């Protein structure tokens, strides 16, 4: 069961039994483009990229994306770049795993973003979604449907931030434009 969060809604990452979340996964999935050309070589491949930016007091400290798959401290891991998408049936084509217990003490916010590296807007991508999953039990905590969302090439999806002793998640769902997370930095900052 997934909770479709609305923009700006915050949920605490407390489990129903009172324990706190220890690991979350951001999943990103989309359907590969139709083969085009005689040999499929003119297929307009769709490459979406998931990134996570680690902030300490509004300063970016580390980024996990397809060129830097593991944060230096080892707490955030990207499972690897997918350049073409999948079957579009709900499976994650890219995922970022966050071990909340290993996140360094000064990191207080982690922002997840999605970018279209090949430049197609989300309107042109089929069956695209991104979601946050409680990695310990596989339960989906939030999900966004990206396709048909408008002429945007990026989305600032959600942030996970420290609250007291635990972590909370806030759904952001802000559309934006850009090729990689770097282009999104100006639009991320207001959300911190």
């Amino acid at each position: 069961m997934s909770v479709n969060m609305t923009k700006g809604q915050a949920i605490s990452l407390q489990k129903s039994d009172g324990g706190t979340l220890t690991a979350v996964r951001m999943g990103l999935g989309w359907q590969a483009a139709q083969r085009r050309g005689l040999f499929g070589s003119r297929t307009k491949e769709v490459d979406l990229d998931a990134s996570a930016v680690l902030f300490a007091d509004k300063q970016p400290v580390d980024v996990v994306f397809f060129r830097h798959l593991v944060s230096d401290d080892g707490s955030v891991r990207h499972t690897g770049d997918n350049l073409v998408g999948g079957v579009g049936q709900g499976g994650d084509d890219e995922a970022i795993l966050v071990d909340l217990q290993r996140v360094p003490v000064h990191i207080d916010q982690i922002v997840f973003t999605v970018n279209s590296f090949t430049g197609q807007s989300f309107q042109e991508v089929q069956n695209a979604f991104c979601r946050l999953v409680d990695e310990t039990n596989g339960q989906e905590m939030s999900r966004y449907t990206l396709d048909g969302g408008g002429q945007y090439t990026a989305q600032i999806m959600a942030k996970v931030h420290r609250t007291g002793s635990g972590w909370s998640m806030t759904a952001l769902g802000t559309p934006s434009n850009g090729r990689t997370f770097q282009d999104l930095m100006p639009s991320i900052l207001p959300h911190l």
Partner: protein
Amino acid sequence: MTAELVRGQNHVLPQTRLEIRVSAGKPIVAGATLSDEEGRVRGADWVAHPASPGMPGLEVSKQAAADHRLAVDLGALPSGAERVNILLALPVTDGAQGPGSGGGPARFGALAAPFVAVTGLDGAEIASYTITDLDAESAVVALELYRRQGAWKVRAVGQGYAGGLAAMLSDQGLPDGPALATEILDAVASGMARSVAAPPQRTAEADRVRHSTPTVQPAHETYGASASQHANSGRSAMTSPPDGQASPEGQVSVDGHVPPDGQVTQAPSTAPSTAPSGDSGSPQQPEPHDSRSRDDLHGQGHPGQGQDRQGQDHLDQPEQQTAAPASTGPVDYTHPSRRTAAPPTPAPAAPTAQPGQPAQPVAGDATGWSMEERLYNQVWGMFEDLARTAAAYRSAVEFADSRMEQELDQVLTDPRSRISGQGDAAREAARAKQAKLVEQAREVLDRDIAQLTAEADVVEPALPPSFAAWGNPIWQAYRVPMEPPMALRLGDLHLPECTDLRIPMLIRLPLERGLWIDSGRTASSATASLADSEELRRLAMDTAVAHAARLLAVYPPGDFAVHVIDPAGSATGSLAPLRESGVLGEPPAAGAAGVSEILAQLTRRVDLVQMAVRARATDSLPPDIDPAEQLLIVNDFPHGFDDRAVTQLRYLADEGPAVGVHLMMVADREDAAEYGPILDPLWRSLLRLTPVPDDHLADPWVGHAWTYEPSLTPPGSEVLSDVLARVADARRAWGR
């Protein structure tokens, strides 16, 4: 000394008249089969069993017993018999139970692990083996005695059969295996009435298994291919690296992308496979300054890390060794001789952790096909963990400091702070905030370090000689190995945050690049205290000798040869352990003539082996070509070198590693300054090590500067000469 074998491991038998002792706690049947070169039992007369207990050279008990002593005379076996399989079986018949067998267990899983030992006639144990992990099997091949190049060896097999004796005998090629099995078990059943009560249970079984861990040897040798593999063990290294992996150094020097001075390009590991399993994230992380050599592999560099750490040498990633898949279940119905790889011995299971507590560390708690590989991966795992936890700490401290500075600046510019007290309070608050964050980060770091230290405390004593520090007791009990090791310890690495936690620096063997022991004064800041450069040169040569001695000791006797160029004879003192033990092929080459002679000899070897490898004709090399790995130690470079010799040396550095010729330079780069930049590629192609602690090595994940400390013998220790004496003895005994 007894060799405690693990499954798949073998051991040389020093004599042919032996006794094999079996103890199982409950009455079991012990027997033996002979088989020929093809692993076939030629007939029922090649099976010694209770109904027919004697045959030439072999005698077994007439009945089931908890303890057996089998007499073996390998010299008296029938002609054609190349192997002796020692079998154990439970005294049960497949269908109807024999009259005397009622009540006995029907599966080995219900018994304590059977223990077998090979002893001399005087009762001294040569090798022992505890057969663990048996479950539903009712018959098991315990040991195999086999002839290899004229010498007899014993191998721990532990191959169980759920189908019992009948299945086992059929699998060994006996056409009437089931009938013979019935005959054996009937004979046992009729003898059971006379059998004595079982002795008390052996209690130390668990201890025995655990104690065998530190002496575990790699179980690399495969069953089917063992003969050819063994014969070619020296040459395999020449033939194994495919063209694509050969000599990355050469590419650096020719493609025009010359890296910054003093920095060495990361070379890909020569691991059999470059496919890391599962956690593929970290090995793919490119580093900015060697992205040139990795771009083709990984696409892009890492733009987030602009700063380039010059003069640092990146350590290679560990890579998973792949092997042919083997079944993991306890019951394996395939015949041992048809198996492609020895099944991995199970990894020691870490006890389940208490909630909220880290698990008790266990040596070998990593993936791998042998204990050696598991320990290697565990050490590299600890290396990565320490690198990352230190990165988290440093990042937190850096952030805390910069935030405090910002806040202090603010206080300074804020006019309100001029009012007495307010400014001080604000400053105090900023400092307290910084201290609190640093303290929190330190707490996390200390917790992680404590966990890693606990792990290191169990891992260090379990390391095999090739990974172990010279102070490790395993070197006192050193025996020459039968298999080449997978990696070598070059020294220790540590970070300034935790100087007590030393990570063994393990590099894969065979060496894929030369080593450079830097005797130059620029080597490190610690050199300042060593006023005397002569002292530094001596230390560098001592380090080189320690590395060379370790290489000699961890390869099977005769599989590794060391040559020395010492043109001025200045390293005579340091070389004493190598010279006096007689492990050097020839005395250290002196003078220009000696230099050119040894370089010519090694260059010829590289040329011929390269040609042979390209033509796939490694068998037709001239007999005077030594198939062993060769290491050339060059002291006092460029003394005694003319231009031709320098060219040959560079050729050896470039082409040698792929064909088993390795270089160890003990040199001060300044001495060769007159050659100018022409030698830069040579220095870059070598892995730079220092004779004194120095922080010039970077890890492949974060790029911290790690302080390297060479692996030296404890002061006053004789371990080096003791070990080398044993290597020399073994070489003489093996006639190599």
